[in-house]
């Protein structure tokens, strides 16, 4: 982490929105959605107020880890085009403020989740924050091209935390929800890295595109998409699945495989010629993939609630 010069003058006082930006709101929205689904599909009903509190503090815990990530990565955020406008490299927030906010919010989120639900969920949230900040951000991100494979587990934990908030434990269904996000993360990020390669290269982050080249990355995208393919249907056949999840995951995985195949088939020269149109399309689709998969789970939960489920 680089040394920042002391706060220059009072003109650089941050606004409230700058502190919110530290929490990575767009990432938080994914955490909120997947944790909410994990909570709602769990077989134990939860009081709406308790559920709201649980989701709020799971999301804030995720936001806290985002702030701590921005604190640690301030030096590379300054270099990368994609992250240059973040609050710390842009000079709106001091690094120490991000550290303090991240630590305080982490502690508050864990304590409040424990008070609202149970200690297991709170411990799980604490572990998720630790995993993202220490294992991914501090250790893996700058060390290995498999950084986002292992580090992606942090983004896959929220539905398990939501499930744990409702039930006090985890189960095979929670693990399947984890696996979907875990296996989805590499093709999602690597398709982004294919058209953001120079950004990571300048920041000396060992993304697969930088360490092993674009061709290896294309191959890895296809492999991980193949590994992802059976997880969705397995979820569809589980006790929290149903006709919506099964049909949605089959179709979504076929489409994802088609996109991964198209990425694998083309060369970097072809990709540069059309400004990475296929890679960008697959990246955008990967966002819809996750949203629709978890949306299908919610639909099946609603069908079961109405007595229309298959189980």
């Amino acid at each position: 982490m680089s040394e920042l010069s002391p706060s220059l003058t009072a003109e650089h006082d941050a606004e409230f929105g700058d502190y919110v930006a530290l929490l990575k709101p767009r990432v938080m929205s994914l955490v909120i959605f997947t944790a909410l689904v994990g909570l709602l599909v769990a077989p134990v009903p939860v009081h709406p107020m308790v559920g709201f509190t649980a989701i709020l503090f799971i999301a804030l815990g995720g936001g806290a880890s985002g702030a701590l990530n921005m604190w640690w990565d301030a030096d590379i955020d300054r270099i990368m085009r994609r992250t240059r406008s973040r609050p710390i490299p842009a000079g709106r927030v001091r690094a120490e403020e991000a550290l303090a906010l991240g630590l305080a919010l982490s502690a508050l989120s864990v304590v409040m989740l424990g008070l609202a639900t149970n200690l297991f969920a709170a411990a799980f949230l604490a572990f998720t924050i630790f995993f993202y900040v220490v294992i991914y951000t501090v250790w893996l991100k700058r060390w290995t091209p498999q950084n986002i494979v292992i580090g992606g587990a942090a983004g896959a934990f929220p539905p398990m935390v939501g499930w744990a908030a409702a039930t006090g434990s985890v189960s095979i269904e929670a693990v399947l929800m984890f696996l979907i996000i875990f296996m989805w993360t590499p093709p999602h990020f690597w398709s982004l890295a294919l058209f953001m390669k120079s950004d990571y290269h300048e920041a000396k982050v060992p993304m697969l595109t930088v360490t092993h080249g674009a061709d290896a990355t294309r191959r890895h995208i296809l492999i991980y998409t193949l590994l992802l393919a059976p997880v969705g249907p397995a979820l569809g056949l589980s006790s929290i699945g149903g006709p919506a999840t099964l049909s949605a995951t089959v179709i979504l995985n076929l489409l994802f495989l088609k996109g991964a195949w198209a990425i694998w088939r083309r060369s970097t020269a072809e990709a540069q010629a059309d400004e990475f149109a296929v890679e960008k399309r697959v990246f955008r689709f990967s966002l819809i993939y996750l949203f629709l998969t978890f949306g299908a789970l919610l639909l099946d939960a609603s069908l079961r609630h109405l007595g229309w489920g298959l189980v």
Partner: protein
Amino acid sequence: MAITRTHELHKRRFGRNLGVALTLGAFVLLVFGLTLAKLTETGPTEGFDHTMRPSLSEGTGQ
């Protein structure tokens, strides 16, 4: 006539302080709401209120 001059910095700080105040207020409301939810989950509660009520003491063996 005001005896102080306001600066753009004051507006920014006011905005930040307002945000913090609203967040704290929301937190207070959240804890209140959560307390109500937890209490209603445990069902009706009774306690000793300085008068002897046999129904409360019978279960405790006092």
